[in-house]
């Protein structure tokens, strides 16, 4: 158990003890601003994560944001398993922002990210369920005047000697008066719920239109606002003319905020119409000089110079300088927008001494504190309620709380409840992208064809520099998220060096699903394929030889190859590519089968995906997250790129920032390795291997090695032309 987990365990017990000490009726657990405990004590809330009603209802208070990954089901399963309640009676409720709900590992804040909701909450929620079960059993034992060890809990009842039996609801009030056990014992033996593909508790509301996302928040008198934003990053309003906008029926106010000029109206449409009629003179500043073409040139120059060393085994530069034959390649990936289907938005009701925020946040404590600073209130005067998130992917864990701050500024200016909505173009152009990266690699092989030295130089912006996370996660100038996946590579290479340059520029960057791995896996797994082919070896067998000391990635790799029929004849014109990568405590291997269509575009027909994520909660959720990561990664592999010219983002909507659609979606098969290892993540690890698996399959089928994402028909064609030309020579 880590030190952090130990500390949090103590804190949890302290909280629980307070709960059992009679404070329950005093409503110590801040469930929701609209709800309080019933004064008769019929609700039993042994800790901050659980409430049992006299009607047998079991409400699990979930401190993680639901953004598709299924936490409103997986986290209740952890509690219900130990509580031994009837799963049919379980429901979820999003937690408020309070210290009890802080992340169990990331420090004093409520945050959802890093694919570690299950990993970080496993122990705390299991203990929460176990503590409540012991209290219910103790209550029953007291009532029956028998020893507790003669009683047991099962499926929502406590059973005692003879045919004694009481449902949890009947015991709740009595249990609430008992002390919380200091060291609740987890139940031994087989699991009832964990490992079963239970249906998601949030599915019904998501298919009948009643699930409330941030954009759906409404109420009497709530105004809508859209913000005219500067055309370049860092731009400021010099002056604006609002008369025409104010003449649009429904437009109430036009106000300047840091993000631009906000048009506030009694509906989204009049606000948008008003915004179109604003005349704004912008102070563009240095931002107007930014272009991705120039950034690329700068990165290429940097890639020729030594960077900070993130990993050094042996002496790769020396070995490489001494050999005649080196394999060298440059890899590139672009800026990427998260593009959640629900554009960013935030509702704010700011009063003199209080502020209510309702939004889909992944980073509630930071957003609440940022809101308090803007509003001039104390953090505890700000209530932040988490709605459903129409996709998060890291974008709703904004290191600068951008979408919350701007909404509070608008609310402060208009003094009315207001909801700021970004249009798709706002969402795509207002920044926070996966960084653009330029990678230079050099390697040489030994006399058996295996890698003797590997030198990997990475150039790109740090997403943590200048944020509150910098002090904790940037060490010796190296942002761990810039080199993750590369600096901790598992392949057995005696001389290995990974270096990093972290240039700065005006383009705002942020974590994007699978963070550094979204880039490093593509580069490393593609380049390793190049080495295998240079050695004349099968890329799958080559990886096996390099992973012989690592049974977990070996097993997913071998299983993927087997399930995909690696090496067996394929349809004419089809090729297979393989990739394996560790991220967020899980190991994933994928085999992609691709062909080229008549226009030279990649068609991905089938993806076989194998994951070892340690102990599992809900296998169907794991499958869904693998399908999800693959689709998300495929959009990046085939289409995704945010480019800037004269400081302007050139993409704005789904016509020029394309996503995978139904007609191009491959068949995906997911296999889960049975494991007793500690739980790993599932939300992100499915993504990293897909781009290299597709790139490697493209090479297998066409001979084209595309080292730059996205793999567009133009790039593939150019590479094929180059190959033809080089053969002629």
């Amino acid at each position, binding site marked *: 158990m880590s030190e952090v987990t130990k500390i949090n365990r103590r804190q949890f017990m302290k909280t629980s003890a307070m709960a059992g000490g009679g404070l329950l009726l005093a409503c110590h657990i801040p469930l929701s601003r609209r709800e309080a405990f019933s004064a008769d004590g019929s609700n039993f809330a042994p800790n901050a994560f659980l409430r049992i009603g006299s009607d047998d209802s079991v409400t699990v208070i979930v401190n993680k944001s*639901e*953004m*598709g*990954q*299924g936490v409103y089901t997986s986290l209740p399963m952890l509690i219900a398993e130990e509580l031994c309640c009837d799963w049919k009676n379980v429901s979820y409720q999003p937690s408020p922002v309070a210290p009890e709900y802080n992340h169990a590992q990331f420090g004093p804040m409520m945050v959802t990210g890093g694919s570690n909701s299950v990993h970080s909450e496993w122990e705390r929620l299991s203990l929460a369920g176990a503590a409540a079960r012991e209290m219910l059993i103790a209550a029953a034992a007291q009532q029956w005047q028998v020893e507790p060890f003669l009683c047991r809990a099962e499926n929502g009842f406590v059973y005692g000697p003879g045919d004694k039996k009481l449902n949890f609801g009947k015991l709740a009030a009595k249990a609430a008066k008992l002390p919380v056990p200091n060291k609740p014992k987890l139940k031994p033996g087989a699991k009832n719920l964990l490992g079963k*593909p239970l*249906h*998601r508790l*949030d*599915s*019904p*509301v*998501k*298919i*009948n*239109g*009643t*699930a*409330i*996302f941030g*954009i*759906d928040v*409404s109420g009497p008198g709530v105004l*809508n606002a859209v913000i005219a934003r500067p055309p370049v990053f860092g731009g400021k309003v010099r002056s604006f003319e609002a008369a025409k906008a104010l003449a649009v*029926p429904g437009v109430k106010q036009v106000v300047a905020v840091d993000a631009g000029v906000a048009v506030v109206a009694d*509906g*989204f*449409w*009049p606000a948008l119409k008003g915004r179109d009629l604003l005349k704004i003179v912008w102070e563009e500043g240095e931002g107007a000089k930014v272009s991705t073409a120039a950034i690329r040139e700068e990165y290429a120059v940097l890639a020729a110079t030594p960077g900070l060393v993130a990993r050094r085994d042996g002496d790769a530069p020396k070995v490489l300088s001494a050999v005649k034959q080196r394999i060298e390649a440059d890899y590139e990936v672009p800026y990427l927008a998260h*593009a*959640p*289907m*629900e*554009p960013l938005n935030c509702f704010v009701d700011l009063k003199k001494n209080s502020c209510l925020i309702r939004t889909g946040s992944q980073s509630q404590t930071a957003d609440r504190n940022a809101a308090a600073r803007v509003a001039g209130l104390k953090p505890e005067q700000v209530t932040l309620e988490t709605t*459903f998130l*129409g*996709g*998060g*992917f890291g974008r709703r864990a904004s290191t600068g709380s951008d979408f919350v701050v701007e909404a509070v500024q608008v609310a402060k200016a208009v003094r009315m409840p207001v909801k700021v*909505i970004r249009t*798709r173009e706002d969402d795509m152009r207002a920044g926070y992208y996966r960084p653009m990266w330029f990678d230079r690699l050099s390697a040489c092989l030994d006399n058996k064809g295996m890698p003797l030295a590997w030198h990997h130089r990475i150039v790109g912006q740090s997403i943590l520099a200048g944020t509150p996370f910098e002090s904790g996660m940037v060490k010796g100038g190296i942002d761990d998220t810039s080199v993750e996946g590369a600096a901790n590579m598992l392949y057995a290479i005696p001389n290995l060096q990974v270096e990093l340059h972290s240039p700065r520029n005006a383009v705002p960057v942020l974590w994007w699903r699978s963070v550094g791995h979204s880039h490093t896996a593509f580069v490393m797994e593609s380049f390793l394929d190049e080495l295998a082919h240079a050695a004349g070896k099968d890329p799958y067998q080559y990886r096996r030889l390099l992973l012989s000391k690592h049974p977990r990635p070996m097993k997913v790799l071998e299983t993927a190859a087997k399930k995909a029929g690696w090496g067996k004849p394929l349809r004419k014109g089809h090729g297979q590519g393989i990739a394996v990568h560790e991220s967020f405590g899980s190991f994933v291997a994928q085999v992609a089968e691709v062909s080229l269509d008549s226009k030279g575009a990649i068609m991905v027909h089938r993806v076989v995906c194998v994951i070892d994520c340690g102990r599992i909660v809900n296998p*169907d959720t794991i499958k*869904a997250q693998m*399908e*999800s*990561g*693959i*689709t*998300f990664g495929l959009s990046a592999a085939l289409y995704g790129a945010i480019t800037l010219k004269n400081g302007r983002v050139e993409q704005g*909507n*789904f*016509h020029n920032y394309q*996503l*995978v*659609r*139904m*007609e191009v*979606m491959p*068949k*995906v098969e997911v296999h889960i390795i049975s494991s007793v290892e500690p739980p790993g993540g599932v939300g992100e690890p499915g993504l990293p291997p897909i781009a290299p698996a597709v790139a490697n399959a493209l090479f297998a089928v066409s001979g084209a090695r595309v080292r730059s994402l996205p793999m567009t028909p133009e790039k593939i064609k150019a590479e094929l032309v180059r190959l033809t030309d080089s053969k002629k020579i």
Partner: protein
Amino acid sequence: MIVFHVNGEKRQVDVSPDTPLLWVLRENLGLSGSKFGCGAGLCGACTVHIDGKPERSCITPVGDVQGKKVLTIEGIPENNPIKKAWLSREVSQCGYCQPGQIMSAVALLKKKPKPTDADIDSAMSGNLCRCGTYGRIRHAIHDAAGEWEDNP
């Protein structure tokens, strides 16, 4: 005053006729199940049926639906085979695009009760899902097609 039917009920609204139907449904009629995703008919999150046909409500001026029948996600009964299949296949992830996906799928089955994969590609490729639920949607539509003929 613009008058039209929504989910079988006559409704009237006093808004500028160029207001997209989506915002009238969401803001004036309190039906927030239809979602805003792109504002340009590119993502399908706002899909509703107008006189039985799937349309993008984010680019449909409400003036154009005068006298017409609009069906939204809120008007699809719980026992609809598509909804049931969506649950049994556990399609939803973040769920934001699903109302639009379901409206497109219901329209498909109304037109073609036994769609092929190519029919599904053609009917559903206008509905984006960032979470990647396409595979499950395909399965769910095939499942629902089996039941559709008995219970359309």
